[in-house]
């Protein structure tokens, strides 16, 4: 296990200096959990499906998922369709024939001692993805392959605090995730990004996320592990043709972390090379809290997994008709999607850029689809929600659902909430208190629109400032402000200021 002591000891070279001397080469392996109803090789329900909430451990498990003797895998047709769609969206060729293979290793995250994956015959290969950086420039990321496989179970490591045997740490295994359909997307080496490499890394993973979301084949929630990224980074001295030794930083599970991890590895490796050292080919663990990586296990290019064709499964040969059908059903690309939304919503280039950079475009689109006005949706996602997200160091999209944001906006539009109250309601929604309506009810936050209550408060305010009505009648309408302020204060903000103003002016006109 990685321990904290070694983490901070990494020497880092100044980023600009590192880039002046070395050229970063990137590569990514992104695992996407498909949201099929059932697992890859069994009819057990898929915990990564759209409607799965939290489930008890080891309750979504069929004999196949545990590798029980006598059980046999059968391929999920929908998972194959989803994989082909994803391959097509990545601009890949789809294999006329492909096979599953066994990847053999001993680790309790799978009960069989092997993972069913694909090896030399992936379902999709040779593609490319267009990625847009923050400044609007586009990059083409070459895709090596996308292959189907099964996810592994989840291990929770527990400390040796039970006092039985010293150091008797153990791991608890939940096989609910075992057998969840995965597609692993592997890039070719990405060369030439230079100082923009960390940004490109983030933009690439964001693009994959947007693609699988628009295809509707994955929930694509990084914080839930639906989308997981391993980032390969190597450096070579400027002018050198041969690639340097790479490290693979595993399980970097937020967009922000992808960017930070790549930047960290560039600086760490540059410091080692600069001091005349050599890079060890190894996996590295990303530590979200410290923003650092630490050494994992050494890795060779040919890790000995003794792949061989899976004898329990037959080849997959997608028909030309199926491929044509799925190709015809492909949604627009993320770039097309952005262009269309920008035109539809009428945002300026810089307004739109802010949305992209905050990674809330999909959320914003879903909020508008749920009925909110684009300008309002933008105001909330880039305003209060982003502020809270930044304060907590998380993605805005993880805090609140687009549906709830649109409901919140509707409450404001209907005059049920003021902006100030709406912010409190948002707080409640983020805290898990339910829908905006639930929070309004539970916290008693609705705007007081009952004129009787308002009139009483206005009477009180006018009693304290008896000359206001006369000043309004004399043409000094702004004098109403003092009364409105007093009423809002008395109602603790839960009044509709516009209605209060109306009532005060009505009174003056009498």
């Amino acid at each position, binding site marked *: 296990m990685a321990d904290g002591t070694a983490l901070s000891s990494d020497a880092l070279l100044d980023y600009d200096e590192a880039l002046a001397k070395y050229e970063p080469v990137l590569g990514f392996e992104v695992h996407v959990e498909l949201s*099929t*109803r*059932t697992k890859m090789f*069994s*009819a*057990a*329900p898929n915990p990564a499906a759209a409607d799965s909430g939290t489930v*008890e*451990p*080891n*309750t*979504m*498990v*069929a*004999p196949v998922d*545990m590798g029980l003797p006598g059980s046999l895998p*059968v*391929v*999920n*047709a*929908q*998972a*194959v369709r989803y994989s082909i769609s994803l391959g097509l969206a990545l601009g890949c060729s789809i294999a006329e*024939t492909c*096979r599953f293979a066994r*990847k*053999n290793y*001993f*680790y*309790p*995250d799978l009960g069989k001692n092997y*993972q069913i994956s694909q090896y030399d015959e992936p379902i999709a290969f040779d593609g490319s993805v267009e990625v847009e950086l923050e400044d609007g420039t586009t990059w083409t990321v070459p895709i090596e392959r996308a292959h189907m496989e099964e996810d*592994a179970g989840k*291990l*929770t*490591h527990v400390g040796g605090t039970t006092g039985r045997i010293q*150091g*008797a*740490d*153990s*791991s*608890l*295994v*939940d*096989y609910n995730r075992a057998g969840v359909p995965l597609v692993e997307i592997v890039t070719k080496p990405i060369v030439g990004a230079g100082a923009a490499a960390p940004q490109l890394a983030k933009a690439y993973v964001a693009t994959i996320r947007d693609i699988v979301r628009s295809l509707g084949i994955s929930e694509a929630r990084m914080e839930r592990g639906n989308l997981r990224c391993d980032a390969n980074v190597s450096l070579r001295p400027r002018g050198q043709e041969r690639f340097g030794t790479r490290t693979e930083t*595993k399980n970097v599970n937020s967009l922000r972390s992808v960017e930070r991890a790549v930047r960290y590895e560039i600086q760490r490796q540059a410091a080692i090379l600069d001091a005349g050292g050599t890079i060890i080919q190894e*996996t590295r663990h990303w530590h979200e809290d410290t923003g650092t990586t630490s050494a*994992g*296990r050494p890795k060779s290019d040919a*890790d*000995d*997994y*003794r792949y061989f*064709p899976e*004898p329990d*499964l*037959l*080849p*997959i*040969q997608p028909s030309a008709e199926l491929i044509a059908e799925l190709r015809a059903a492909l949604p627009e690309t993320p770039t097309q999607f952005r262009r269309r939304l920008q035109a539809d919503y009428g945002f300026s280039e810089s307004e739109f850029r802010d949305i992209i950079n905050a990674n809330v475009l999909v959320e914003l689109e879903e909020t508008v689809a749920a009925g909110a006005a684009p300008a309002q949706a933008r105001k909330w996602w880039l305003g209060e929600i982003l502020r809270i997200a930044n304060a907590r160091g998380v993605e805005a999209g993880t805090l609140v659902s687009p549906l709830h944001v649109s409901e919140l906006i509707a409450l404001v539009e209907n005059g049920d909430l003021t902006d100030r109250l709406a912010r409190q309601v948002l707080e409640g929604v983020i805290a898990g208190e339910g829908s905006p309506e639930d929070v309004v009810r539970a916290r008693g936050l609705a705007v007081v629109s009952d004129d009787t209550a308002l009139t009483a408060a206005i009477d009180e305010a006018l009693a304290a400032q008896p000359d206001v009505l006369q000043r309004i009648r004399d043409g000094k309408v702004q004098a109403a402000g003092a009364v409105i302020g007093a009423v809002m204060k008395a109602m603790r903000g839960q009044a509709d200021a516009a209605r209060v103003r109306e009532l005060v002016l009505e009174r003056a006109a009498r």
Partner: protein
Amino acid sequence: MTDAPEPVVITAADVQHLAGLARIALSPEEIDHLAGELTSIVDSVARVREVATPDVPATSHPVALVNVLRPDVPGAVLTQEQVLSGAPDASEGRFRVPAILGEEQ
């Protein structure tokens, strides 16, 4: 496929390496014995190349079927009790296993 493949010899070191990967303990005698046997098995399989011309597609399966698929419809699952019924040790609804050196692949 080349016309005249190099004969493959499985050495004792190869067997030891494979035994390690497969978590099988072998004595030196067993290793030597298996090295000889595996060499002759590989040699026999290699003879297939003598008859397999390029127009014979590679096969990984004797069954001449493809696309054996299942509709994406949920079926039966085991209960947590059933899942854990064969576990030597369990805790909090999960299998308890000794601390694992190494890490996920």
